[in-house]
């Protein structure tokens, strides 16, 4: 019997409606009790002045392994997750080869077990080899433990295939995580289409490229009853489509990324490829639209789309550099700085968006501190002001435009199944 006592923190668990200063006692990897505890534990964390949250879950992470270990590995990516306060990640299957077989899922699970860091939930491919031609063996992938399905990196282009995928996944009650993009409209694009792209002479990706596909997938979800989760919503028009679909009772959920509620396409003026991602950074009006969507719950979760790329790949001409931005180690700081500190959302909503709802959408038994639950816990210092330094990142890559930014709020302890896997300053 091993015990861990987290003493005196502000315990927030939206799943139980809890927001109170209290102690959390963990026994044998599970939450034993929330309440004043005078007992002695094997290990104690003084959380006075800190927030104690169910472990954060990032449902959109590219771990790159297998195939692109020069960018990230399961070990480095999950270490980055721990340093960012995440006790779980869902890894997206656009690896090389893609995760479209039981063996591939098993490989991820084994590597994750060996890394012994945070939980890794596997997202399987919608289509075999991510080619968009025929369904992957979704039932077998479910048996192997896949929690959701996605061809992210690219949309499922064939509308009939997407329809079949919705119908088929319904039988397992698994969501399809959709990358929404009409490729003909974004072809050759490196950034948002707007005044900035016009002035810079860079090929733009119009908001419509994303919104047309969101519209298609909402319609397909409604006609099939399948679960659609819209990934990385970046436009205010996309938020409006999802809001209307939810009002009709559609089985639609959505996520937004910290960079999409923080940066705009103005960031491309320096031609820095760290500002290049897909979907691209949009306009200030879109940023406001995304924030409004998070505030009113149209956007259920915050996910990072953590997309590491080795420096030599990013240090290329803008049209040759790959899309992608790191996210795991700045997500909490950006969310606190951009949304909580200015009073747009409260702590409870932040934790709901970063733990409760991702767990619910993925159907995993996490995201709560209910007694008996697996003791995945994140301790956050809400007032800590810190400077982002990519050189100190756990990630193998450094492609973050936030290098040098001062952010408020940071995870100071990350606990997975009752074991303290990360403590700030004691890495």
């Amino acid at each position, binding site marked *: 019997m091993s015990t861990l006592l987290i003493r005196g923190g502000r315990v927030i668990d939206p799943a139980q409606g809890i927001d109170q200063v209290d102690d959390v006692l963990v026994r044998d990897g599970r939450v034993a009790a929330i309440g004043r505890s005078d007992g002695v534990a094997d290990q104690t964390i003084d959380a006075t002045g800190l927030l104690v949250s169910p472990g954060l879950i990032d449902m959109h992470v590219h771990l790159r392994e297998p195939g692109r270990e020069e960018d990230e590995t399961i070990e480095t990516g999950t270490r980055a997750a721990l340093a960012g306060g995440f006790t779980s990640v869902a890894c997206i299957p656009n690896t090389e080869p893609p995760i479209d077989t039981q063996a591939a899922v098993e490989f991820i699970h084994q590597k994750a077990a060996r890394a012994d860091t945070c939980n890794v939930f596997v997202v399987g491919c919608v289509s075999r080899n991510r080619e968009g031609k025929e369904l992957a063996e979704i039932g077998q992938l479910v048996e192997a433990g896949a929690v959701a399905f996605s061809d992210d990196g690219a949309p499922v282009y064939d509308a009939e295939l997407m329809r079949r995928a919705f119908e088929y996944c319904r039988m397992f009650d698994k969501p399809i995580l959709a990358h929404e993009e009409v490729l003909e409209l974004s*072809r*050759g694009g490196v950034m948002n289409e*707007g*005044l900035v792209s*016009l*002035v*810079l*002479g*860079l090929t733009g990706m119009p908001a419509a490229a994303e919104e047309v596909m969101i519209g298609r997938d909402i319609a397909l979800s409604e006609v099939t009853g399948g679960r659609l989760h819209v990934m990385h919503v970046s436009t205010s028009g996309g938020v409006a489509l999802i809001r209307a679909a939810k009002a009709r009772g559609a089985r639609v959920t959505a996520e937004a990324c910290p960079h999409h509620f923080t940066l705009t396409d103005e960031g491309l003026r*320096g*031609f820095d490829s760290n500002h290049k991602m897909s979907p691209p950074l949009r306009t200030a009006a879109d940023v406001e639209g995304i924030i409004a969507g998070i505030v009113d719950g149209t956007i259920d979760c915050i996910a990072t789309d953590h997309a590491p790329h080795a420096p*030599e790949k990013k*240090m*290329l*001409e*803008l*049209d*040759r550099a790959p899309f992608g931005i790191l996210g795991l180690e700045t997500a909490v700081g950006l969310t606190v700085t951009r949304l909580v500190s200015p009073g747009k959302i409260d702590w409870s909503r932040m934790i709901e968006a970063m733990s409760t709802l991702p767990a619910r959408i993925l159907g995993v038994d996490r995201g709560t501190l209910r007694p008996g639950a697996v003791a995945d816990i994140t301790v956050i210092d809400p007032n800590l002001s810190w400077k982002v330094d990519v050189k100190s990142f756990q990630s193998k890559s450094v492609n973050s435009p936030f290098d040098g930014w001062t952010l408020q709020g940071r995870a100071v302890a990350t606990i997975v199944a009752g074991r303290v896997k990360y403590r700030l300053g004691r890495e």
Partner: protein
Amino acid sequence: MLQSERVPAGWHHRHLLDLERLTGDEIRLLLDTAALFKEATDHCRRKLSVLTGSTVVNLFFENSTRTRTSFSLAARRLGADVVDFSASTSSLSKGESFIDTARNLEAMGIDAVVVRHSTPGTPHLLAQHLDVGVINAGDGPHEHPTQGLLDIFSIRERLGDLTGVTVGLVGDIAHSRTARSNLWGLLKLGAKIILCGPPTLVSQRWRELGVEVSHNLDDIVPRCDVLNLLRIQFERQNMRPFPSVREYAHLYAMTSDRLTRAKPDLLILAPGPINRGVEMTAEVADCRQSLILDQVTNGLAVRMGVLWLTCGPREPGAATSAAATAGAASLPHRSHS
């Protein structure tokens, strides 16, 4: 006098990357410097030695004949050595990154890099990574600052002050770096700009910068003092933005007929190469108001000025050279080679 070989006090830049980020005064200084060189070299025919001992590299990742030749000649007219480096013959085809290529050249002891690339911002990235002057000779559809300067130089030579002058930029604005450099330069000098072409090539969004957008050439021709006819860049287009070349020419080619409805002293520019019969008819290209050949000569003058400003000696207290641009007509004292 240009006896001091130092750059003028009003010039604080190491590089020439775009016109968007220059002030009106800086653009005037560039134009004045070019005028000085044009005069000092007897319309760009004679040679000076103000850059003797300097080496300029033409780093061209995209095909070019006239711009590269113009930069080479300009550098040689100033006494500099010129090295041509084109991507097709380089190790880029072996997978080296363009930054590594440029760093290698830099290590050979050069003073300035003239770079052309199909991707916007590439000169800006080079400028961040190199310790030598970088001159943008065209970065995709973004900017082509020396082309913009030579167009403006040619207009200014004829019309003087550009305040209130109406300039129509006609054609493939979407893919034209020349259009963008003209736009910024002309705006900063107080000209009025009309962008004209089909909506697939001329976005309404340009209005946000305070310029007029028109899709009707016949409507704007009578109002323009200058027309700059830009080439249709078929090579940069994903999908042809108009139904046929025939239809484009019908709507947007400058013809003798349209010329009759223009102001009598309308000036015609074209950055070249021109597609005769598409952007303009042969009669218009060769008409008396055409500045097309002036543009070529002035290109040399502008590039001499730009090279001198970016690789000329820069010592503390360089203020003496302010006189150099103050209308001094005489040559630098080391003017013969």
